[in-house]
């Protein structure tokens, strides 16, 4: 495939969603709804077609030659001899960005089609598709960028798109607050990313020790960390500088991927429409953090401390979110916490250096989590907007297509053998046995996460679809229209079958289709567990995941175990989980309130007291003085004339005395 064709396809990938966005935004409500209905999903499907063509073209090349850079336009340059800043909008097409693009446009396209049905009754239909198309453009900019600047630009653009879509129903105060929270958290992450970019730009040295002053990925990675020609462009491995860069990058990733301590916005983000949750807060945007860590793997390989922090925080978030997920009642919030938890696993995997496993989990997760959200959307749609699972029940008889799809999603999420999640999670966890900090213990934590995951997934499945209908709406539920069921079924098929691309029972060694495709980017994995150990881990992990399923069945299916066992026996554990570890309260008390208090103090005390006070002091001093002199000013001309004469006479007398 020649350069011109690649450029054309890239232009199509970026341009089509932009076109959709522009048409709908500038046209506003003048664009008829039936046009938007075709245009909105159409441009995304078109972009997906371009991605497929591009992938085919890239596959024609030799594996080492699959990284293509396309220059789109010159952004700015203060450069020259003085070493000022400069950046160009370059696009990097390589296996990693192709996988990401495939997920974004593929899953994104399905969700757009689904949205045509889900949002059909909404008065903001056009606006919704404008935002969605804009989101796709932004996400594509993020994954396609070949330098830090456009990565940051994409990074912030998706944050805005996410904000706009969370607060889509802007008349709900909760949605508005959730949007603001998400946006501010993202900006904190952006700042981390920007600072990391500065450090790289200012400190990266070339082979001869000269400062390179670049933000281009290719140059950065060629000069950092292990590669064909080993070279420490950012100081020796494990040095303070590269560790700080790694941690700052992770601050960006944590904000985007809802990892502790920047995680509290994600559950609130469920205020947005359900397709938004599926697209942004499950399949694509929240996994951008994983993409970031994987993209910057040379830096994390140079900074083992930062990598360890990433791994520990990832696993810690996964565990925390899984615990919280067990007690929530809002169906979307449960899925949101499971997203946070699964992304924690991906982050963990990226942190320990198992990048292709992380990306594989990313793809699989995009399928089954989008599936779960959309199926949940069908449920919510079917029972008139109710989201509390306690009001549902017995829906399996009424939602004949949604139920099996949701079940497939649950099975995949829980890591039940032969579904996508099983392949991805077991591979990911297996690496934790030999890589990363605290080697076996993080694996143990991961297994616990898996057990909890299958527990709460099946809890939702049972409470929602089995048993008796608990609400009036639930007993009158109706199946969603075809345009919504179709994409759900496609995703169900993918969630069920995608895992087989990872099949390799011979060695338990991740040499698979996805991993092979990604190998030119990530290189070989550092260590893999011995086949025997891996097999044992697989068996133990799988058995325990099934155990979680069984436990949920006993509690919620058979009701052999009382549901209030934990609340009664260990109320603090239950409360901790139900109240989401109190992080919202902590941040409110530690950050939001002091900030608002400071602002109020500035307004009430400092501004009037100090600044205006100083000015007013000078003013009143002058005023007092002036008031004293003012008594001379009677307004009568004669008085002025008298004063004039008196002083003239005095002056003449003085002059006369002086002369004589």
């Amino acid at each position, binding site marked *: 495939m020649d350069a011109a064709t690649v450029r054309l396809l890239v232009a199509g990938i970026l341009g089509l969603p932009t076109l959709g966005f522009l048409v709908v935004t500038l046209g506003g409500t003048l664009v008829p709804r039936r046009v938007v209905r075709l245009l909105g999903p159409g441009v995304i499907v078109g972009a997906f077609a371009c991605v497929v063509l591009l992938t085919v073209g890239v596959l024609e090349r030799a594996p080492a030659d699959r990284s293509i850079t396309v220059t789109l336009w010159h*952004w700015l*340059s*203060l450069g020259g001899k003085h070493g000022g800043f400069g950046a160009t909008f370059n696009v990097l097409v390589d296996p990693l960005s192709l996988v990401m693009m495939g997920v974004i446009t593929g899953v994104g396209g399905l969700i757009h089609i689904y949205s045509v049905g889900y949002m059909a009754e909404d008065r903001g239909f056009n606006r919704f598709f404008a935002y969605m198309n804009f989101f796709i453009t932004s996400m594509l900019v993020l994954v396609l960028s070949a330098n830090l600047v456009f990565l940051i*630009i994409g990074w912030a653009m998706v944050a805005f798109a996410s904000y706009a879509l969370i607060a889509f129903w802007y008349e709900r105060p909760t949605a*508005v607050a959730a949007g*603001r929270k998400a946006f501010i958290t993202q900006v904190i992450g952006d700042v981390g990313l920007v*600072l990391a970019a*500065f450090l790289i730009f200012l400190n990266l040295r070339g082979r001869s020790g000269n400062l390179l002053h670049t933000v281009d990925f290719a140059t950065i990675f060629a000069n950092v960390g292990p590669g064909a020609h080993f070279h420490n462009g950012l100081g020796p491995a494990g040095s303070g500088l590269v560790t700080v860069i790694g941690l700052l990058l992770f601050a960006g990733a944590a904000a985007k991927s809802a990892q502790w301590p920047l995680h509290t916005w994600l559950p609130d983000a469920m205020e947005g429409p359900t397709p938004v949750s599926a697209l942004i807060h499950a399949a694509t945007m929240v996994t951008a953090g994983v993409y970031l860590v994987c993209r910057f793997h040379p830096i994390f390989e140079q900074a083992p401390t930062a990598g360890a922090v990433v791994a520990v925080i990832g696993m810690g978030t996964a565990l925390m979110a899984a615990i919280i997920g067990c007690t929530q009642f809002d169906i979307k919030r449960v899925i949101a916490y499971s997203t946070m938890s699964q992304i924690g696993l991906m982050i963990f995997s990226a942190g320990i250096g198992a990048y292709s496993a992380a990306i594989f989990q990313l793809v699989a997760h995009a399928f089954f989590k989008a599936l779960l959200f959309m199926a949940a959307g069908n449920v919510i749609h079917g029972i008139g907007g109710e989201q509390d699972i306690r009001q549902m029940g017995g829906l399996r008889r009424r939602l004949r297509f949604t139920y099996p799809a949701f079940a497939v999603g649950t099975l995949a999420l829980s890591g039940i053998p032969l579904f996508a999640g099983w392949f991805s999670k077991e591979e990911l966890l297996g690496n934790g046995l030999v890589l990363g900090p605290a080697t076996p213990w993080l694996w143990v934590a991961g297994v616990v996460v898996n057990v909890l995951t299958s527990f709460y997934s099946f809890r939702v499945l049972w409470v929602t679809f089995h048993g008796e209908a608990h609400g009036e709406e639930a007993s009158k539920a109706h199946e969603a229209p075809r345009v919504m069921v179709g994409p759900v079924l496609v995703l169900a098929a993918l969630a069920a079958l995608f895992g087989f691309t990872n099949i390799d029972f011979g060695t338990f060694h991740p040499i698979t289709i996805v991993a092979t495709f990604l190998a030119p980017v990530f290189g070989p994995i550092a260590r893999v567990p011995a086949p025997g150990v891996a097999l044992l881990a697989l068996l133990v992990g799988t058995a325990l995941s099934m155990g979680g399923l069984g436990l949920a069945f006993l509690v919620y299916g058979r009701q052999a175990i009382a549901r209030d066992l934990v609340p009664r026996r260990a109320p603090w554990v239950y409360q901790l989980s139900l109240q989401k570890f109190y992080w919202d309260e902590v941040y409110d008390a530690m950050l939001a309130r002091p*900030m608002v208090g400071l*602002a109020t103090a500035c307004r009430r005390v400092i501004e009037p007291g100090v600044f205006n006070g100083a000015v007013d002091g000078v003013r009143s001093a002058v005023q007092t003085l002036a008031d004293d002199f003012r008594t001379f000013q009677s307004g009568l001309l004669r008085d002025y004339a008298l004063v004039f004469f008196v002083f003239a006479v005095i002056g003449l007398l003085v002059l006369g005395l002086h002369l004589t």
Partner: protein
Amino acid sequence: MTWPILGITLFLPLLGSAVLALIPASRTMAVRTVGIAFAAATFALSLVMLVSFYATPKVGSAVLGGSVHGRSLAHVASPITFQFQEQLSWLGSTRALGQFRQALNQGNNGVNQAFAPPINFSFHIGVDGLAVWMVALTGLLFLLAAVALSRREDRPRSFLILMGLAETGVIGVLVSLDLVLFYFFWEAALIPLYFQLLGWGGPRRGAAALKFIIYTVAGSLFMLLAILGLYFITGAETGVYTFDVPTQIAMATQVIGQHPTSLTIFGHVFTFLTPEQWLFLAFALAFAIKVPLVPFHTWLPDAYGSGTTPFLIFFAGIVSKLGAFGLIRYNLALFPQASHFFQPVMLALGVTSILYGGLMALGQRDIRQIVAYSSISHLGFVVLGIFALNVDGLGGAIVQMVNHGIIVAGLFLCVGMLEVRFGTRDLGRMGGLARPMPIMAGMFLVLVLAGMGMPLMNSFVGEFLILLGVFQVSPAWAVAASLGVVIACWYMLRLYQGLTQGAVRIPGTGGEERRAGGSVSGGGVRDLRALEIALLAPLVAVCIGVGIYPSPIISTIRFNASQYMRLDGRGPQALMPTLGLGVASSSAPQPPGGGSAP
């Protein structure tokens, strides 16, 4: 150059005012048309200059003549390259200028102490990459202000006449290449601004106008003293007494810093500041008040709170940038070593402005005051970038000056449109306006995003470069300033969400709020009219356009920005020969040459 485009641009608004004065005030339609026509013509000329400058950013008077201490400057470039230069000798008379030229040609033999110092002051104008953008911004904002002048506004003719005077004053400040001329325009611009603030606007406008004028005049008094001080100090050192800015830059960067750093007051010898540093402080005070930086800012909320919308468009948009412009053109160029000396102070003031302005904006309920304090915060970024003292910071600061002019004008326009509709500025009394006014909400959103420095918006370019520049000097200040970005996001979202989102709340005319439920569309409220859309559209387009493709603006300023950075002789490309330190070498007055030849 075949025709004096810069001079025409400078005096066209003045001519407009004169023409307006001849039209009877009762013919408002004619008054309005003429006012808009002259503003549009000025803007068109500034655009012609901009395009011409963009095509050849390096052309201009390039070479100084003469020599300094026996070193010939015949091949030395003028420190700053200016284009579209025009020079008319004025007070100093052609005789003095001729002597001066002669002295230059004869090198170090021609001039001695006996050479009587003429008041060497000429009408010298010209633009560099910084000024050419600022002039274009001035043209745009004054045009928008003329168009935005409400039909219901009192005394439109007087307002437009004063606006023409103000525009000439502002452009004069930007294009003057003579210190006296600069000072003249600096003060001249104040007078129409004062009367506009006094005559139109809210109930407290009298106090606001007084506060503004007293603050500014107090600051410029020190500047006047510093101008005279500079004139005599460099004159005594070199024998060339001149107010010419390029010549002064060439001389000042060489001779002032070499002075003994002592002052004798009542017999005590204080050695804490050099004359250069005193001069720096005097200039910086005038500019810091104008910007304004935080301890000197209290005139701004009052003035912004009481002016009318058309006034605020150019007052907030361009007049406040004059301070930042002065910091670059005068403080940075004339006193590079003092700039280094005071860098920590200026950075601290910049960061203080960013954080304090942001916090104040966060605490306001008045939507105008939110914009006013956000303006303080943003200009803190500009000062921060200027005193990063590197190309990245300065380039970012210049971009950000243009950006902020655009953004703040747009925000004040939006705020003004809401005020006209609802008669209130209380954030708590409005809400959910996206439902009845979707177009306003959309355009406002773009401006708000630009205001918070979102990537792909114009101010991201500026703030990114500024932070990068500051980061090279001191990562701690850069981190503190980036906290300001987070706060900016917060207060801007508070403003936007408070106005456009949530339940629909529309303040009624009788002071009673009409509370409308979610399903009610807020009837009776009109979305933006075509004229209002036309006013906002160019600003919105610039916000997005510059963010996506900032290269044109950067490539115009790049060359001059790097020139400003070389002046202190520390840069790798220092062009001026370095002189020996100490008093002895500067005791024999020598002419350094001047850049007065166009």
